[in-house]
């Protein structure tokens, strides 16, 4: 990386941190510190909500996912606008009316302190772990690809975030997120146009789209009811709605973003901004990945994008095997390139030649995928402690090897900005929940506003240290990222169920809800461990797994149904 790239990257990050810290250095009271003084306009809220959701992994992994599996992942977001409409119409007015700092405060007014504590505790566990992963995941990829020290990368992200989040609280988080989103989107647009520019002169943008379609990367919508498929229209519209409803309606890291608005109008507009733009944005990031795929159809590359893993294999007894795999891949690549060039050059003139070339290109692509899988298996065999996903390195590999000087620094600033924006939102929410739902609620002594502001700052720094520590030791736990994702899916549905009862079923009281939550949670955990066997038995055929999005639907539905069944008995008693 050149000195210019270093200056651009560190300058961008340094400016955002200094700006956020300076601009929001004065916080007179808790309202200022935790709710940003309720001064935010909808544009800031909208960008802040978007930045909190979009972590660095969104910008590293999503293009890689499109490279490997196409654009079907966008279906995961189909439920998001529906969920945001429900949050905007139902949740926001209630939160504003009760003037709450956290979503969990509302639960106490409906069900009592036990439900509030339970939900707040589940949030702290889940989000506390996630904050560590938000730092660790991009740090491990950046350090592997760029040869940086992992611990220093983690510390760089963590310490920068702690500085401005502790100093300025919610206002600092929202203001910096606005700038970070600006950097992120500018960087992604520039990268997109550079990819198009770098395609061979005989491949236009239209040709690139056609090539992507031929290679099966433009299968965006799938209406099939196949339970084994992870992303279909139906999983997106049902599971995606429940997941987004739970995330935006009950997760404090998001609730805090829109409660910083100056009115219901500003908060609603901030959410509607996301309801309209989130799917196109996700589509665009996936399209960047698809364009990178097309670029690599005409640009020879290694069989795996994580060069580090290939180098490690060459240090073992499997070096010859890797060499042979690389030779096979190179041969297949050349044959595929010939076929794809034929398609582009004879698309409108020679139908027969085009058809034959399409068939050949598709066959060679299947072959190439098999060779890549073989290479991945070999890496796992030769380097057992290697847990990285090669698709995570696709976009980074493109950035480092094909972008001009200066833009590399900008794109790395994009990745760091995304990591920092989501981490700051998480730390801010964790500190708020700890202060409001535990410290202030359980502390019977009256304290001054300044005391609570200082306490919140200590909790913010404390959670920051926890997140950094967790990120530093994350590599010791196997499949950690997967574990955190599963943890989230298991609990989200049940928490959402509790909130939906609170909002919509006025006759259901605290005990029925609490019992339903315990039963529902137990069933979800049983399904997690034995779901495959139960599903196979019920459907009469072998199924692979229950897609994790369905846990949100199952957990939520169970809590609501069981509470409705128990409720008459509680009311009688």
């Amino acid at each position, binding site marked *: 990386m050149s000195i210019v790239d270093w200056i651009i990257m560190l300058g961008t990050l340094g400016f955002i941190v200094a700006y956020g810290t300076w601009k929001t250095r004065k916080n007179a009271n808790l309202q200022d510190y935790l709710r940003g003084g309720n001064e935010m306009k909808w544009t800031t809220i909208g960008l802040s909500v978007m930045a909190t959701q979009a972590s660095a992994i969104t910008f590293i992994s999503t293009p890689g996912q499109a490279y490997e599996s196409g654009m079907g992942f*966008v279906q995961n977001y*189909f439920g998001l*606008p*529906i969920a*945001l*409409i429900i949050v*905007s*119409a139902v949740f926001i*007015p209630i939160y*504003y*009316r009760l003037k709450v700092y956290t979503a969990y405060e509302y639960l106490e007014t409906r069900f009592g302190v036990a439900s509030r504590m339970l939900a707040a505790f589940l949030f702290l566990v889940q989000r506390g772990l996630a904050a560590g992963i938000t730092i660790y995941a991009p740090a491990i990829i950046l350090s592997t690809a760029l040869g940086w020290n992992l611990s220093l990368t983690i510390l760089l992200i963590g310490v920068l975030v702690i500085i401005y989040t502790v100093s300025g609280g919610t206002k600092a988080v929202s203001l910096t997120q606005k700038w970070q989103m600006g950097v992120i989107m500018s960087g992604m647009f520039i990268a997109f146009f550079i990819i198009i520019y770098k395609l061979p002169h005989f491949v236009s943008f239209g040709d690139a*789209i*056609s090539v*992507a*379609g*031929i290679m*099966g990367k*433009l*299968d*965006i*919508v*799938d209406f099939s009811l196949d339970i084994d498929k992870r992303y279909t*229209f139906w999983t997106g519209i049902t599971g995606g709605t429940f997941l987004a409803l739970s995330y935006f309606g009950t997760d404090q890291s998001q609730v805090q973003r829109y409660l910083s608005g*100056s*009115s*219901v*109008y500003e908060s*609603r*507009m901030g959410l*509607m901004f996301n*309801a*309209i733009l989130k*799917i*196109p944005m996700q*589509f665009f990031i996936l399209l960047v990945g698809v364009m990178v795929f097309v670029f690599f159809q005409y640009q020879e590359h290694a069989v795996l994008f994580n060069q580090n893993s290939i180098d490690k294999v060459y240090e073992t007894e499997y070096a010859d095997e890797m060499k042979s795999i690389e030779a096979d891949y190179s041969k297949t690549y050349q044959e595929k390139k010939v076929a794809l060039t034929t398609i582009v050059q004879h698309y409108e003139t020679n139908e027969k030649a085009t058809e034959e070339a*399409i068939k050949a290109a*598709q066959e060679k692509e299947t072959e190439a995928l098999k060779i890549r899988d073989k290479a991945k298996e070999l890496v796992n065999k030769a380097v057992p402690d290697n847990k990285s996903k090669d698709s995570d390195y696709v976009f980074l590999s493109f950035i480092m090897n094909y972008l001009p000087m200066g833009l590399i620094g900008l794109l790395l600033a994009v990745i760091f900005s995304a990591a920092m924006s989501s981490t700051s939102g998480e730390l801010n929410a964790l500190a708020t929940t700890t202060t409001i739902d535990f410290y202030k609620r359980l502390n019977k002594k009256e304290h001054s506003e300044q005391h609570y502001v200082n306490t919140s700052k200590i909790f913010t720094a404390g959670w920051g240290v926890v997140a950094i520590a967790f990120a530093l030791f994350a590599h010791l736990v196997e499949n950690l990222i997967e574990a955190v994702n599963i943890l989230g899916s298991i609990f989200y549905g049940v928490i959402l169920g509790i909130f939906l009862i609170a909002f919509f079923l006025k006759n259901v009281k605290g005990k029925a809800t609490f019992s339903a939550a315990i039963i529902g949670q137990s069933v979800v955990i049983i399904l997690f461990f034995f779901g495959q066997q139960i599903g196979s038995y019920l459907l009469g055929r072998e199924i692979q797994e229950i897609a994790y999005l369905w846990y949100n639907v199952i957990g939520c539905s169970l809590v609501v149904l069981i509470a409705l069944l128990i409720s008459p008995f509680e009311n009688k008693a």
Partner: protein
Amino acid sequence: MMQCLNNKFYEKTNIHYVIIAFTHYSIHSLYHSQIMNHQKPPFFKNWRGFYIFVLGFLAFLVVLFYLLTNIYNQ
């Protein structure tokens, strides 16, 4: 004397009443106009219209993606 005191009392209570009513009205109107406002969304008569527009846009995107899938699926 009593009449005078009574008058003063009524004057005072009236003033208090006015102040309380005004304060109540101000808080109420502030609450409803600024915090719990019913401010309309841009370009629409009410929020329901805006929500229908968002759902329509979602439907448009799904149809667009479906067409793209079919056009480029070989």
